Every structure is written in structure tokens, then in C-alpha cells.
């Protein structure tokens, strides 16, 4: 085991040594690699540019636009019940009890006594993604956490919404240039509401959630039009 380990580290050390002599040519004209993470405004962005393996969300994407399965029984009873359902959904948003970093503190503070999210029926925080409606991504998303976060998102049943809370989740924020962070979660998952601020105040979060309610009520019927994947235009 010790020997094996040694070999591994020798490898990596050599790699590091090679990089140590970065060619001076790169100083003059750095070569920018075109990234598939930017341009993809389609389900392909889910796993970094490849067409998604079958999840229930990917299957929704395969559906013809317009009528997808979010109305459940009402697929066979086409009525104006969409209005009612949107009203219900907008008024019972169960957030997923998941915080990544600093903003999670403000998220909890928004749910506690001083400013009470429960007034708007944005409670209770569900611990299991199967029962959650809205994923509040609060805090810096690192590349190591990206996989679990995407899986959480895929485990949530439709209809579901995503709220990006804080600068780090909107754009990378103060850790934009780190080697281990994702510059905005919209590279890896769809986002409905962006709440800037480092961190945003609890009132800001509640305002964003109220905006999300308006979004839900206003977007009746056109569910399938939501773009899955990065919403950042190329070249930003």
C-alpha cells in the first residue's frame, strides 16, 4: 500500500513539475478553450454537454412542448383548473432543508421568528427532496458539491423551482476566480429566481420567494417552456 501510494504521488509531483515550466509563449497569447458549459441552453448541460441519461426530468424534456405531465389527473380533464393548481402551488412552497454556506444562515433566519416565512406558507422545510417544491441554493457551490446538488435537484418531483440565493450562486461572487468553485449554479441547473447579495437579507429572500409565487401563478400552462440548463448567454 505504501509503495502504491508513493507511485501515485510521484506521478502527480512530476505533473506539477512539468507545469512549473509554463511556456513563455502563453504569456503573449493565452489560448482560451471553448467551454461547452457556456453555450448549452438545453438539457445537454445537465451533465456537462452530453445528452442526459434517462431521468424523469430528461424524459419530460423529450416530451413535445406544451402538454407535459405536471397536471397529473387533469391531463385527461382539460379545464381551467390550471389557475387553481397554480394558486395552490404558489401558496404552498415547501423548501428543501439544504444550505451550502453562509447564506444558509440567512435562509434559516428567514424561517425563524423575527421574519417568518411561514406566514406565506413557505414552510415546513422538508428534509427529503422527494417532498420538496423549491430548492433554495444558499451559498457557494463548489465543483465537489455540484454532483450531489444536481442529484438533489433530480430527486425532487415536478413541479419544482430553484432559487439562487447569494452572489456566489448567481455569478460566483467573491470566489469567482477560485480553482474549486462553480461560477453560478446556472451552469449546472435551471434557476427561476436570482437573489443577489452577499448574503441577501432575510427580507430579500422572502421578497424573492414572493416573486417566485408571482412567477408560478403567471406561468400557468407554459411549463415546458422553461429552459433546462444554463441561462447564461455565451460570452458573458
Amino acid at each position, binding site marked *: 500500500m505504501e509503495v502504491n501510494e508513493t507511485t501515485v504521488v510521484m506521478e502527480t509531483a512530476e505533473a506539477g513539475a512539468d507545469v512549473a515550466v509554463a511556456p513563455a509563449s*502563453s504569456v503573449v497569447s*493565452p489560448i*482560451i478553450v471553448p*467551454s461547452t458549459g457556456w453555450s448549452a441552453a438545453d438539457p445537454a448541460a445537465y451533465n456537462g454537454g452530453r445528452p442526459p441519461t434517462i431521468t424523469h426530468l430528461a424524459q419530460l424534456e423529450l416530451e413535445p412542448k406544451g402538454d407535459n405531465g405536471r397536471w397529473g389527473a387533469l391531463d385527461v380533464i382539460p379545464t381551467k383548473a390550471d389557475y387553481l393548481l397554480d394558486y395552490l402551488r404558489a401558496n404552498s412552497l415547501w423548501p428543501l432543508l439544504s444550505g451550502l454556506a453562509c447564506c444558509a444562515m440567512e435562509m434559516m433566519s428567514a424561517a425563524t421568528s423575527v421574519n417568518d416565512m411561514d406566514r406565506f406558507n413557505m414552510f415546513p422545510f422538508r428534509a427529503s427532496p422527494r417532498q420538496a417544491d423549491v430548492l433554495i441554493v444558499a451559498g457557494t457551490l463548489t465543483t465537489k458539491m455540484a454532483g450531489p446538488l444536481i442529484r438533489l435537484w433530480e430527486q425532487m418531483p415536478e413541479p419544482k423551482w430553484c432559487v439562487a440565493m447569494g452572489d456566489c450562486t448567481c455569478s460566483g461572487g467573491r470566489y469567482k476566480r477560485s480553482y*474549486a468553485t462553480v461560477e453560478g449554479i446556472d451552469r449546472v441547473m435551471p434557476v427561476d429566481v436570482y437573489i443577489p447579495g452577499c448574503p441577501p437579507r432575510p427580507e430579500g429572500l422572502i421578497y424573492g420567494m414572493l416573486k417566485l409565487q408571482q412567477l408560478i401563478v403567471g406561468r400557468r400552462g407554459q411549463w415546458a417552456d422553461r429552459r433546462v440548463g444554463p441561462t447564461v448567454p455565451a460570452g458573458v
Partner: protein
Amino acid sequence: MGRPPGRPHRPRGRLTEAPPDQSRSRPTDTALKRRLEARLGDQLAGPVRARHDTTEIVVGPGNLAAVMRALREDPAFRFELLADLSGVDTGTVLQVVYHLWSPLTPDWLRVIADGLPREDPRVPSITFLWKGAEWGEREAYDMFGIIFEGNRDLRRIYMPPDFKGFPLRKDFLLPDDAARSPGMGVRYMEQPVAPAETRRQPVLRTSPGTGSLVAGAGHQELVAGETAAPALSQGEPGP
């Protein structure tokens, strides 16, 4: 945290160890200095320095275990608390720096294991003295690639286990230093996509700055060399 325009980039040189100017420093405990020289003067690689409330000794990686054991268990020292364990990259060599606390002296003691080569940096692990140093050593291994011989659990602790390169080394360039980084603008999530069977190859997961993504002749060879390396078989998913 971008740099304001027009501000010259900081010349990133090697670290030059200037001798501490004794005029401004206030050495507090001179007795400790004498005791250290008397007890383990032969094992020290350099003079005992004292500045502020910190006494500093430098040892070679060979003597480290003996020195630390003496410092912890000698009733004359009783440095019971390992305050910190840190790796340092001076640009030429790597160092491991320990900070110790003792109830017998108002000073911090800084022990520097100096002169670790970049290619194969190795120091003995001190987990037999402080079991709590285990994660500190894991972090130093993760960030600097320093191998602590005797640590049972020397894994990556922060970066993913298949990550190549050591972020805190000076030759690991952030995209921040855009003018000098071969991997400028390359972000982890943005790397070009390869077929699924080659996905486990570490080339695609090399960090920004390791240069494997730059289309250049030298780097192509580097890529080839890395893919051919036997260590890659460890990256494969389990059966």
C-alpha cells in the same frame, strides 16, 4: 477580487528569507532559546531565531521525529499542544511548519522542517505524538503533495480523490493571473466533453493551470504521458 486596472502585477519571485531585524522585534523568552540550543543543538539545521513572541527552530526532515518527541515529552519543554501544522511552498523547496504551545514558556515555538524537494517531498508523520495531526497532514498532502510517512490515512481531504496537481503550490496558477496562466479561463465545469469511456482519465479533470488543456506541442506530450501512466488505473470506477 479582480485586480484594479493599471496596477502592475506583483512580481512573483522566490521567497527570500531575510534575517529578522532585531531592532523592531521583541524577543520575550531568551531562556527558551538557550535551553533549545543546549538540548537539541546538534539536530538543528539552523540558528534558533526569536522574534515577537515566537521562537523558531529549523530542522531537517530526518531529525524531525526525534526533535518533536523531545519537545513533547522532555519535562524541560512539555510542548503539549500542537497549535498548527502547515505546509509552505517557498518557490524552490517545500516546508512543513509546526507551531507548539507549552505551559512552561510564554513563547510559541515554531518548528520548520526545511528543504523538502519538490519532486518527492517526504517527512515523518507526527501522528504517533499528536493523533490530531492526521487531518492537518492530510490537508498538507492535498494542498502541497507532501508525503507524511507513517500517516495511515493520507488521502485527499478537500479536492476530489482523482484531482491532479496541488493547488497551493506556487506553480499552480489561478486564472486570476490571467497573463501568465496557460489554463486561463478554463473552469472545472467548462472543460470540453469527451466520450464516456475516456471520462475517467485524469487529463480531463486536471485543474486550471496544469496546462493539459492547452493546445500546444509540449502539452500534448504531457497529456500522452499522463494517460499512459499506470496510476490512472486507480481512477477507473469499481467493477
